[in-house]
């Protein structure tokens, strides 16, 4: 099963950010939050972060590791990596189309 992230509604975009963050290795919630903030310039709220984590975990795209104190790291599963690749594969075409329509280029 490779369910597109778009089915996650308003959690689709935060979920993509989380998957990208975890593609660099396991991270716990706070580390994901700061990583996403560095990548996108805007932080994920805690309610949104855990709403998205719960959905990703339920769909088997990420998995929780053993807690370290009260922090629980998450890591990308094989299904999560496949899903992320599929999502990212669409982006260059999307980006190219947008820039072409604006009269720019990819540099």
């Amino acid at each position, binding site marked *: 099963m490779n369910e597109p992230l778009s089915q996650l509604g308003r959690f689709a975009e935060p979920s993509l950010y989380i998957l990208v963050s975890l593609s660099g290795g396991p991270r*716990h*919630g*706070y580390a994901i*939050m700061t990583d996403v903030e560095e990548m996108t310039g805007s932080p994920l*709220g*805690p*309610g*949104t*972060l*855990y*709403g998205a*984590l*719960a*959905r990703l*975990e*339920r769909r088997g795209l990420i998995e929780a590791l053993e*807690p370290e*104190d*009260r*922090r*629980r790291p998450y890591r990308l599963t094989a299904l999560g990596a496949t899903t992320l690749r599929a999502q990212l594969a669409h982006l260059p075409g999307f980006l190219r189309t947008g820039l072409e329509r604006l009269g720019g280029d990819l540099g």
Partner: protein
Amino acid sequence: MNGLLRLYPAAWRDRYLDEVSDLLAERPPSLRDRFDLVAGAADAWIHPQVAAKPSEEDESIMRPVGAAALFVIGGVLWIAGGVVQATAPYGVEGYKESNGVMIVIAGVLLTAVGAVGRAWSAHASPAFRRCAKAMLGFALVMLAPWPILIIGFYGYVVAVVGFGLLLAGSGRLAGLLLAIGALVATSFNTENTMAFAAVPLGLAWIAVGAVGAVRRRSMNPAPAGT
């Protein structure tokens, strides 16, 4: 625990409370984060992603659906009694004359029995049990003649406020409606149109019952510390 995390369902808190508490300790929530947590709590109720543990299944002497039925029927009786009483014609002494009060008392008894049935579980907090027992005790006092029944009425209403706040504190938002409805019901007056004050509490009982019927698991707040 951050107070806003109490708004989340018990199953969600069992799974994520430690992590999110740690995150909030590391990064104190801004006003925007607080709104985000409230929205997240609403989402967790509407679209639950975490299943309740089997141990959270019903352990009370009354099945959740049984108590839910008593709450809903009791709520309907509260509404019916209030409406019947408020719309009754004024008698020769200038007071509303009807049997609406008897209907309300029936609603009081049913909801109190349901509350005791649900609270009598090994996992229920002592405060929750006390409120439920007080509700039933005062409901029985309401069977006494006037004016003693007034003591029963106000005692029941105060106990319902506590019962509702305990439910709300454990993440059952319908409990907050119950507490507010009970406060409104303190204005209940059999002699005039203020008998309509019974209606909000009836609606709140129906909401509590409906939530209990849908979730079909224990609605008992767990003892402190869990």
